[in-house]
Every structure is written in C-alpha cells, then in structure tokens.
C-alpha cells in the first residue's frame, strides 16, 4: 500500500507541493494526472526518497519513507520499480546490461539467471534479441519499453511510472499501458502512473488523482472525473473545452 499525507515542498520559497494526500491499496492502480508543472513527478520522487519533502509523511507498506535515512532507503528502493520520464537508461551499458542492472545490484543472481531473466523481459516487451544494442541505437518507443523491462525485471511490489508514454504514438502508448497492466497482473504490484494520456490511462486505473499547482483538485474513480465540479478537471479528461469555460 502507498499512503501519502500532507506532502508539502517548496523550491526557493516557491511552493511546488501543497498538502498532497493520496492512497493506493496493495495491487491497486492510481493514475496521477494534471497539467505540466503541477508536481506529479515530484510526488513520485518523494515516494522513493529521491526528494526530501519539507513536510508530510509517506508510507510504502510499513516503511515510512520520509523518516528513513539514505542507507535504510536503499532497502525500500529495492521494492520499487521506477520508469523515468527521460528514460534514464545508462548510455554506456548495453540494453541487456541496463535491464540486468537491478538484478546485479539488488540480488546475488548468477550471470546465467540474469541473462535468462533479461531475455524473458525483452520478449515480454516485444523486443527480443536486442541485448547487445546500446540505448542510443533505439527509438523513443523502444527505449520506453526497455525502461519498463528494467523497472520490472526484479518483480518489485511497487511500480512507479513517470509519464511512460510521453512523446509516443497512440499505438505504442496503448502497448505500453497494456504491458504495465499485464506485468502488474502477473505479480500483483501496486501501480502508480503519471501520464497526460488520460483517455488511454482511464481503463487501467482504479482511481485518478489530479494535481494542479501542487494541490490535489480531484481524487476519485476515472468516470467521476467526467462529471467533476471543477471545470478544469472535466477539461483535462476531455469533457469540457477549457477555453469556453474560461470565457463563459
């Protein structure tokens, strides 16, 4: 279970997160939506301890992330798979070494086991046999799928995805969302996805949380977002033209 209470953070006095609260039950899927700069990626970074918030508390199961030191966080981070917004693939390592990296650092698996697991994950993301290629030789969609493979190769109980479909075509977007859902179903991971692809994301999620200027403005099932009181929430999920609302 993921639980966030009163998450607040500012950069040089400029508020970035204001009293954010959200909850994702074990095995559940939450879509974190909102305009650019709303603080979605910051929430994800705070969840895995990459950002120390000014205030607020975060729990991943029984571990209070916000109360842990860097060494204790290492243990918690081993339970998280993270798909980064900008791929974050190690450009000096091959695709195979990238995907196997969590296994080499987080466990004591043999080289043969790692190679087998990497090959299996690459097959699952429909990229078989590209272990020897480097990230620089891949397209954006392929890099995202390699990111998903790396984030899930150690079967983490928590999967955090920061805009996993940014800049991708609709077919690849649906393929990546389908892949995340399939991998989640396989291991029962708790999934939190940040995305702007609201229509494609909705069928995957139990709930949507929408952030605006660092504040939660909507928290509920995706279908309720279409009838939300806040016109910007409705506009964001594609039910109201925001300019007409603003001009009304």
């Amino acid at each position, binding site marked *: 279970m993921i639980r966030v209470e009163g998450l607040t953070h500012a950069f040089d006095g400029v508020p970035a997160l204001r009293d954010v609260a959200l909850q994702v039950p074990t095995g559940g899927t939450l879509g974190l939506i909102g305009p650019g700069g709303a603080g979605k990626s910051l929430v994800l970074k705070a969840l895995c301890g990459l950002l120390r918030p000014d205030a607020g508390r975060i729990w991943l199961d029984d571990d209070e992330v916000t109360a842990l030191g860097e060494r204790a966080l290492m243990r918690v981070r081993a339970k998280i798979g993270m798909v980064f917004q900008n791929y974050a693939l190690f450009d000096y390592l091959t695709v195979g070494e990238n995907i196997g990296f969590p296994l080499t*650092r987080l466990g004591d698996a043999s080289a043969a086991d790692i190679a087998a697991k990497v090959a299996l994950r690459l097959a699952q993301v429909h990229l078989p046999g590209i272990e020897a290629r480097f990230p620089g030789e891949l397209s954006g969609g392929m890099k995202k799928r390699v990111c998903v493979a790396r984030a899930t190769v150690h079967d983490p109980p928590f999967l955090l995805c920061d805009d996993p479909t940014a800049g991708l075509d609709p077919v690849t977007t649906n393929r990546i969302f389908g892949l995340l859902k399939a991998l989640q179903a396989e291991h029962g991971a708790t999934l939190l996805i940040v995305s702007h692809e609201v229509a494609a994301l909705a069928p995957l999620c139990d709930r949507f949380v929408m952030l605006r200027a660092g504040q939660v403005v909507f928290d509920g099932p995706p279908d309720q977002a279409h009838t939300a009181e806040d016109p910007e929430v409705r506009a964001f999920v594609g039910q109201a033209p925001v300019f007409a609302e603003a001009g009304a």
Partner: protein
Amino acid sequence: MLRRVRRQVADTLRVGAMTLYYLARGQRQRGAVLAQMFEVGNRSVVFTVLTLGFLGAIITLQAGFQALRIIGDTSLVGPQSLPLLVRQLGPTLTGLMVATRVGTGIAAEVGSMVVTEQVDALRMNNAPPVDYLIKPRFVACLVMIPALTVVGIASAFVAGMFTAQAAFHTQPAVYARFDVVKLSDLAEGLSKAVAFGAVIPIIAGASGLMARGGSAGVGEATTRAVVYSSLAVIVLDFVLGGLAFLVFA
C-alpha cells in the same frame, strides 16, 4: 558568488568523505577501476608528453640564454632544471593538464548523468553515485596521476636535453646529472602528484553531482570543475611546497 563557493567547498568535502567511506565499505565493481585507469592514464599520455616535452625545451632554451648572457656557460642548465622539474614543475603542470582533460571529462559525464536522471536510476538500484561513479575515478587518478607525472618529467627532461644539445652544444652527459636530485625532491614531487590525484576527481565529481537543469547546467559544472581543480592544484602546490621546505630544510 561567496555562497556558491561555500556550497562547492561543502559538497566537495562531503563527496570526499563519502569516497573514503565507500573505499572501505562500498561494493566492488569488476573492471571499473581498470577502465578508469585507461581513461585517465593511457588517454592522457600523448597530451602530457607533448605539453611537458615542450615545457622542458622552453625551460632549457630560456635558462640557457640567460646562462650564456651572464656566465657564458650552459653546463649548469641541466643540473639546475632537473630538481625543479621533479619537485615543482612536473607534478604541478601534469596536475593542471589532468585537471583540464580528466576533470572536465568527469564533471561532464557525471553532470549529464544527473540531468538525464541516470544518477536517480543508480540510487534506485542500490548504486550510490559516489560509490559507483566517483570511487573508481578517485582510485584511477590516485594511481595514474603520479604515473603520468613521472612520464611528464621524463619527457620534459629528454626534450630539454636534446634542446640543450641542439641550441648550446651541451653534451647529454653534462646535461643529465641525476645525482643533483635529492630524496627530498622526489618525496615532494611524489606527494604533490598523489595529492593532485586525490583532489581532482573529488572536485570534478562533486561539480558533476551538483549539476542542475539541462545542458547549460552540465556546462557550468564542467567550468566549475576545471576552475576549482586548477585552483586546488596551485594552492596544494604552495602548501605542500611550504611543508616540504619546513620538513627538509
């Protein structure tokens, strides 16, 4: 400005302390130190040989002209320049060259990993950036900068010897007087080279880890790395030179 310098110093000290900690307690990465030794050492050899070689030739020419003008004899140029090369110019100029070539490389590589979230990905996978990125570079520089210093001094000396022969007809046997180099000269030169090998990767690594934003942030980190590394080389040269004077005088 003062705040930025203070932050750089604080971050450098923190990265230095963490590097020492991970030297004792960190994970071993097979081949990482060797790869960095190749990067720091082998790839800097030509640069060091050329720079120090020309410097040796320039010193000999200038000293020879002055010696000819004042005492009319160039036989002391070699014996006078060799201790100076061993104790002072060899380590310092090699340090400055490495700060320029290797320091900028470390800062740019680590900085670009920070801005593309690769450092965050390392932290997510039980690979603390100081342990994984800085420690191998620290060990490599600690070994290879003294080695490069020896190569640099040899280049400067040989180039100076040939220059003396060509310009002033000084025989190599007259120029090459190794007995003038004292143990204290060797100790001072070696301690400087080791000190430069320790501080350059730490300063450059800390600069890279401090990078923020995009490519502009990486550029700033690279500039900071070369400025502060070069400054550290000069200051350490002064401090260690003074200490050596107190100890060996």
